[in-house]
């Protein structure tokens, strides 16, 4: 039971947060929705009729759907067995493998995709090796089209299954399985009837998340699509071609399918909570003792991890390739550290890095402050309309990056104060704003979780000991939620550093971020420079994680009683 004890400013904060959300999150999307029904100043379904009348648009919708469906299946086929392998069995190196298996999370979407290009693309290292091996004139396979997209999706999105299912396995109450066995169920029956239903929430959650991410996926179709149409790409192309009406319709259709999935996800989370009533026993990890099986499990682990690390290693290698020298060879023939030296010394090379750092820092600071206030209102104050606040905050999570880019670009393209529109298109500020909106859900969720974890009695204790509201916020509330808030903000920061999908829709020459620069270098066949940027980005992200983990675990120790 929370206790609203005359805390000042609540109403003012509440109003401020609500206005910001309505203006920055709801309004641009509502604007697009309304505009998609307006033609020549009147209400019309013409744009939708045009969309569904066009074979290529229908094809794009259908491609998006079936590619997402198969992405779910393939990601599940990789992620679920991996989770079982690493969390149910013990063999040498298990812990290292378990940690490495979530590595693709660290790879920003575009960077992941271009590392595949270097590895599996037409002139990629692996493709050329195979071609040479078999003495073929043409590459053995062409890494293009739906197959390539699915490959990239499976590689990057199995992590959802892996993380959800391993968390589910850790939570699993093993006494239930024991109860089933003692009631006469065979071990396979116990698995099917008891273990699997308990994992169902994890599986459903991961499936929906994968589906949503695939629908929104832009980088893979953009680089590897080879002309295949998908909705997220159509939006970008329509905008480039100046067909704003069609872009809006595509946006509305893509956004509504994502929101539909999000609603399903929330509904599912709400109805089926398998919470153990008591503290159950943890599943004992089975020690693989047979030497051959140990070898097999260990071998499977090594192969998997090598496969997962290959793209990173490739990028690292190519980042030392001298620009313009790698043409027909399997591996780049000449190496240099020039690529890195230029990044740090040449101001035109350094600029994108500084841009990204600056914009990510700006957006993340705003996220941090916003999340503290919003989460406090939602969890502690139990303000009226909490559900509305919560869904508005969650909305950007469901919106694909292209959708967000387009809606912001369409809304903030003129100064019209009475309409709540200001001119941001073409200025520096639109991209940081987009980063802020995109990562709002992550940070608010993290802070919300910290608020939910800490005992409301702590704040009451501070008050009854004579501390004013401000004093108790400063000395108790902030120190308690700081680890969660920092963790969430850092995640937002590193994601913003490598952001590509929204950036490509709305960047300007004043704020060209790293990802756009990588693409530009790639276009000029400066593979070394593109890879060097990518490695630098991975390094920044990795370093941020390592530092934050260390720092957060230090203060985290004090916060866990």
């Amino acid at each position, binding site marked *: 039971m929370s*206790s609203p*004890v*005359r805390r000042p400013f609540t109403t003012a904060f509440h109003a401020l947060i609500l206005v910001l959300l309505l203006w920055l999150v709801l309004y641009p999307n509502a604007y697009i929705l309304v505009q998609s029904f307006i033609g020549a100043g009147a209400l019309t379904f013409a744009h939708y009729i045009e969309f569904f009348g066009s074979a290529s648009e229908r094809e794009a919708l259908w491609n998006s759907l079936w590619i997402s469906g198969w992405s779910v299946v393939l990601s599940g086929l990789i992620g679920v067995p991996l989770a079982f392998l690493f969390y149910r069995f013990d063999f040498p190196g298990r812990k290292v493998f378990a940690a490495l298996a979530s590595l693709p999370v660290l790879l920003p979407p575009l960077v992941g995709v271009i590392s595949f290009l270097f590895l599996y693309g037409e002139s990629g290292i692996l493709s050329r090796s195979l071609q040479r091996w078999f003495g073929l004139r043409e590459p053995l396979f062409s890494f293009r089209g739906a197959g390539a997209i699915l490959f990239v999706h499976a590689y990057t999105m199995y992590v959802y299954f892996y993380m959800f299912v391993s968390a589910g396995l850790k939570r699993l109450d093993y006494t239930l399985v024991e109860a089933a066995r003692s009631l006469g169920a065979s071990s396979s029956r116990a698995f099917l009837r008891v273990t699997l239903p308990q994992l169902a929430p994890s599986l459903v959650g991961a499936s929906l998340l994968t589906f949503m991410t695939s629908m929104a996926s832009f980088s893979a179709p953009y680089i590897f699509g080879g002309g295949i149409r998908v909705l997220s790409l159509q939006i970008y192309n329509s905008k480039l071609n100046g067909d704003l009406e069609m872009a809006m319709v595509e946006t509305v259709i893509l956004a509504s399918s994502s929101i539909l999935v999000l609603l399903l996800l929330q509904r599912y989370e709400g109805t089926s909570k398998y919470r153990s009533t008591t503290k159950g026993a943890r599943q004992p990890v089975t020690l693989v003792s047979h030497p051959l099986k140990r070898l097999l499990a260990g071998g499977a682990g090594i192969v998997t991890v090598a496969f997962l690390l290959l793209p990173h290693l490739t990028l690292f290698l190519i980042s030392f390739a001298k620009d313009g020298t790698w043409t027909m060879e399997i591996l780049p023939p000449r190496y240099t550290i020039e690529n890195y030296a230029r990044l740090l010394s040449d101001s035109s090379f350094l600029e994108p890095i500084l841009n990204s750092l600056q914009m990510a820092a700006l957006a993340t600071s705003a996220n941090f402050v916003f999340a503290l206030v919003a989460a406090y209102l939602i969890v502690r104050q139990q303000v009226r309309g909490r559900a509305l606040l919560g869904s508005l905050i969650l909305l950007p999570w469901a919106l694909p990056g292209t959708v967000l880019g387009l809606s912001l670009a369409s809304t903030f393209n003129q100064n019209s104060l009475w309409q709540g529109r200001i001119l941001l298109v073409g200025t520096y500020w639109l991209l940081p704003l987009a980063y802020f909106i995109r990562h709002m859900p992550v940070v608010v969720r993290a802070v919300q979780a910290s608020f939910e974890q800490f*005992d409301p*009695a*702590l704040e*009451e*204790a*501070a*008050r*009854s*000991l*004579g*501390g*004013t*509201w401000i*004093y108790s916020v400063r*000395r*108790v509330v902030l*120190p*308690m939620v700081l680890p969660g808030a920092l963790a969430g903000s850092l995640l937002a920061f590193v994601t913003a550093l490598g952001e590509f999908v929204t950036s490509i829709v709305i960047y300007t020459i004043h704020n060209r971020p790293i990802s756009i620069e990588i693409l530009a270098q790639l276009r000029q066949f400066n593979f070394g420079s593109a890879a060097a940027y990518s490695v630098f980005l991975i390094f920044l992200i990795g370093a941020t994680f390592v530092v934050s983990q260390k720092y957060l675990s230090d*203060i985290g120790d*004090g*916060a*866990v*009683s």
Partner: protein
Amino acid sequence: MPYLELRNLTQQFGSQKALDGLNLSIEKGELVSLLGPSGCGKTTTIRLIAGFLEPTAGTVWIDGRDVTPLPPERRRVGIVFQSYALFPHLNVFDNVGFGLRAAKVPRRQIESRVHRALELVNLPNEANRAVFELSGGEQQRVAIARAVVIEPQILLLDEPLSNLDASLRQRTRQQLRELITSLQTTTVFVTHDQEEAFALSDRIALLSKGRCQQFGTARDLYDHPANEFVARFIGRANVFTLPFAAVGGDCLCLAWPSGRELRLRKPADSARFHIQAGQSCKLLLRPEKIGFEERAGTIRLFSARLLSYRFAGAWSEWEAEGEGVRLWIAHSGASPTSDGPLAVGMTKDLWVRVEDFQVLDV
């Protein structure tokens, strides 16, 4: 004048009344327990006293002053939470000194007062430890030190022993009583455990359904329960609902379900009951007041068959049935009576003193 006074305190959560016009007057230095089953409103009451809730109606008075409009930080009410609510990011010293720092007490004074408080709770050398390193009992004492170091006008303890294991609870109960008595602070405990309430407090307010059912010493509540709820909540009780067999005179004539009559003397305060034919009367008879042998002043109640038996150390409890009612008998000492040991299935005469019957309600 009472030191802490709750006047007509009412707290509504949505459509539910957690507290329904509670009145309570507590004297200075008194130790009072709020006792009752879960959901009776006892925690709501102390949250209202501390100022964490705004009452729907009614007022809270401390030392002759209406504190209802004051925020918690201006009430000088120390509270020991059920979870202790020690600040996990602060060490023992900073936890205890929190209130003094908030009040901008000079650093020197904070040090000496915190150390005195830690000595009081018998933790003189633990100032620099992290709170999560402490045992449950130590954490509780830090929470008490933190609450009393600000010299509160009222000390509130929410289920102070519920987080300790059973063996520790017994020992801590005694120490807690001694500690709080030595502080001479007006104290309100919340507990659902009657033994704890008996051991810790001078007076007990028994709450149910948001109302105070009875406020008095433990002995009052046991010997003179105000109603059936109190009788059943405190100790074991046989409560019989019997119809009147006849009305009038000095005698309370009731009938057992079998039809046999039970004649009791009318209680002195019988004026408060409106005795009419056709109505029934609720009677309380404590199990330990029933004997298997005749003694001076006792009458034969009826003979009853022994149904079951439970050994409880110094006591044995028997369940018996006779004249259409079931009842509990607490039998002390060695089980044999003058005509041999008792056994399930026997039929025995039961003996009571007429004045041990109490009329609860009509």
